[in-house]
């Protein structure tokens, strides 16, 4: 009886939290932002959704179908790739590099190419939805497939079984919690990818309606669409979570691994990993680039080959001028991107800790967190810009928001992976919650945090370029937007190349840090 009452009051507190948020929003929209045509009150949004329900339902049908197909295809690709990487470790470097490079390609460059390849139809929308999910699934999945006690693998080996048995019997089950966590992130991301795909020329869908609403000063319409987009994202997130609960009835196996003393690597192997492997990856990627474009006979006018970029940036007569223009823009971008990246990571990790300590806060705040991530950036950017200004702060905010949500989900999951025995041990000493957090949970969270930190590198770069294109009009994002409107595709592909190199370098830096830290806290992740 008392327990029920406690539950009841907790529920009421959650509802009260929601209600007060909505009321604050209504008041803010009606009075503070009344005549600004930027924020709509919830009542007006609900009225608009009811009024235009048939229209929105049809648009939603199109966009959800695109997103669903992209979600399935992108995640399947990620699963296949992750299984390959873990089964055949030598290909990991190359696979990681290719996966990263494809994820780094900016939409302004790929959009027109996808449209030319597919012609009219759903092709670009589905592809962009798939592209926006595969990487965030691939990276944690590799972590998950490795989150296995070495003794279990030893057991498999002692029975004379090979990697296949290890994969199906041990790794496949160990990775499930990681898979579910990444599919949760993938659900809103696929929807956002489909919306962005509609910007490459579509006749229906939520993305198309959003553009129409924004251009016609239809603020209620814009916010109605943003609300629908968030609702879909939250439902997708919740559905995956629910499916995960159904599947993993037993708790995931706990990991208690003592730092194994590894045999020192042979010198030539070290040299190979440090020098030859990156060079090999570069060569393969350049070859793929050339072969892909030649194979599809893409016009050299807009589909520039590696040789074109080389001539434009290095060999050509104007190369120095081109380089200085590009690097000036890049410098402008990088400062804010790094700050936004750190802010987003920090915010995600801290919020995860807060949620873990105070589950009541999580109930109120997590829908807001999902919504922030899933509302198309074109809808939120004006509001962010109004609040934070058009300068670097606005851009920093956009970058931080784009990466904080995946970090939050990943870290939350990591915090909950803390082995039960460890928690029992702390409990038996009546360790205060904060001690438990810092000494038990945070170390358990580290693999997830680093996986998120790595994924966040390309995401931060992408978010920064989008913010520059839409809001600040500075840096390399703006340069890319300018070049595509003046058909300067040489500069566009040069920007793409340099940005990719920057992302890969940032990624490598985080990975290096990760090796250092994890070889102490989670040695099973370090190969």
């Amino acid at each position: 009886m008392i327990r029920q009452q406690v539950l009841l009051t907790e529920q009421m507190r959650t509802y009260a939290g929601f209600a007060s948020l909505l009321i604050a929003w209504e008041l803010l929209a009606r009075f503070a932002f009344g005549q600004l045509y930027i924020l709509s009150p919830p009542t007006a949004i609900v009225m608009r959704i009811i009024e235009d329900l048939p229209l929105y339902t049809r648009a939603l049908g199109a966009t959800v179908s695109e997103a669903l197909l992209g979600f399935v295809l992108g995640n399947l690709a990620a699963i296949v790739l992750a299984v390959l990487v873990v089964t055949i470790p030598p290909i990991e470097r190359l696979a990681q590099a290719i996966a990263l490079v494809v994820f780094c390609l900016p939409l302004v460059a790929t959009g027109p190419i996808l449209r030319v390849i597919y012609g009219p139809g759903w092709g670009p929308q589905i592809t962009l939805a798939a592209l926006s999910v595969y990487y965030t699934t691939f990276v944690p999945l590799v972590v998950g497939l490795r989150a296995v006690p070495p003794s279990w693998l030893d057991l498999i080996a002692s029975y004379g079984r090979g990697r296949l048995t290890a994969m199906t019997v041990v790794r496949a089950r160990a990775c499930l919690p990681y898979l579910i966590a990444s599919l949760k992130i993938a659900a809103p991301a696929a929807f956002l990818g489909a919306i962005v795909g509609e910007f490459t020329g579509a006749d229906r869908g939520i993305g198309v309606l959003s553009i129409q609403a924004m251009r016609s000063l239809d603020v209620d319409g814009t916010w109605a669409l943003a609300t629908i987009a968030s609702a879909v994202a939250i439902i997708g997130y919740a559905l995956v979570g629910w499916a995960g609960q159904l599947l993993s009835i037993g708790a995931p196996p706990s990991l208690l691994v003592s730092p194994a003393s590894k045999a020192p690597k042979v010198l030539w192997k070290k040299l190979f990993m440090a020098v030859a492997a990156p060079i090999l990856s570069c060569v393969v990627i350049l070859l793929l680039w050339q072969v892909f474009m030649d194979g599809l006979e893409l016009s050299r006018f807009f589909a520039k080959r590696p040789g074109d970029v080389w001539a434009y940036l290095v060999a050509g007569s104007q190369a120095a001028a081109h380089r200085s223009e590009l690097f000036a823009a890049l410098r402008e971008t990088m400062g804010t991107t790094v700050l936004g990246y750190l802010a987003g990571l920090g915010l995600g990790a801290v919020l995860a800790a807060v949620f873990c300590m105070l589950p009541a806060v999580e109930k109120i705040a997590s829908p807001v967190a999902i919504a922030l991530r899933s509302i198309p950036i074109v809808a939120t950017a004006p509001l962010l810009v109004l609040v934070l200004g058009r300068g670097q702060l606005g851009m920093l905010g956009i970058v931080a928001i784009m990466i904080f949500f995946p970090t939050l989900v990943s870290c939350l999951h990591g915090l909950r992976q803390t082995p039960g025995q460890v928690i029992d041990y702390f409990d038996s000493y009546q360790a205060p919650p904060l001690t438990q957090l810092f000494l038990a949970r945070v170390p358990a969270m580290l693999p997830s945090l680093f996986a998120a930190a790595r994924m966040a590198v390309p995401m931060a770069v992408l978010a920064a370029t989008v913010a520059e294109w839409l809001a600040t009009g500075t840096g390399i994002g703006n340069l890319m937007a300018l070049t595509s409107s003046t058909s300067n595709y040489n500069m566009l592909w040069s920007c793409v190349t340099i940005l990719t190199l920057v992302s890969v370098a940032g990624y490598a830096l985080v990975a290096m840090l990760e090796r250092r830290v994890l070889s102490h806290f989670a040695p099973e992740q370090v190969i």
Partner: protein
Amino acid sequence: MKFPPITRRATLGLLAGGAASLVAPARFASAQTNSAVNFQLSWLPSVQFGGSYLAEEIGVWAEKGLDVSLLSGGPNAPVEPSVMAGTSLLGITAADYASAAVAEGATFKIIAVAMQKNPFAIASLPGNPVNSPADLVGKKIGMAVANTPILAALCALNDVDINEIEIVPTQYDPAPLVSGQVDCLLCWLTDLPIAMTMAGVDNVTMLLADHGYAVHSQTYIVTEDALANQRDEIVALMAGEIAGWNAYFADTEAAADLVVAKFPDLGLDLETQKVQAAKQVDLMVSPLTEEFGFGWFTDETVADNIATLGLLGREVSADLWDRSILEEIYG
């Protein structure tokens, strides 16, 4: 909101539909052999392309043995790659974009000009109006940074120092003006100002074309290769297009009705479309088109364009324009 239940049949249907759409490009690739052609529009469907939708509706293209697909554009769907790659036979873009593409190696010809007057305008509020280029001094203007050369050309044409104007990067959205973040906006006469009017916000517009800015807009481009090898199809396509636009000028309200009915999934507002349809006529009809017909241009208008494009930093030759298709049609 009520969602349909997820059944196995529905899921399979969805997957099959998606798979079908993935293989769809093959259909368009093979369609090149018969008389099916793609026509790449520059933006999302609206009365901006009312004449093209009318041409399709009244069946002029079908009569000429053409199966025309009108491809919609969007914020990230540039026209030039589509035409250059041969995906589309015909595309709509503006003279400045076309000349920039040519400078980068494209082989385009402008074969007709839909908007005789460039649609770029400066919109402001009546309390703080911009009625002439001189009024821009000391103002904050909201615009896409990509459009800076346009403002620079206007300033050069009217002896205004561009450094005395503060450029604020905005999206293509009227909200920054209405909310007072900027004093004026660089936009098309036919969309944001109409959107503001329909939302009950009075506004003042100044058309750049009335102050010396001569750049043909909504121009029809084809590649040199297509002009040589697919001439008959281009003539038929343009003849149908002209018939469509003449039907449009005869009854702009009917064109608005058609577009709204044809694209129920776009949420277009009929009244807004009617106002836009009527306002657009002023940009497309001139003494020149009254005399020679829709799409016409002369050596003089081309020379004016070359002069303005020069101010935009583009060296353009008169060869970019090719009137032979129009001459053949109007013959």
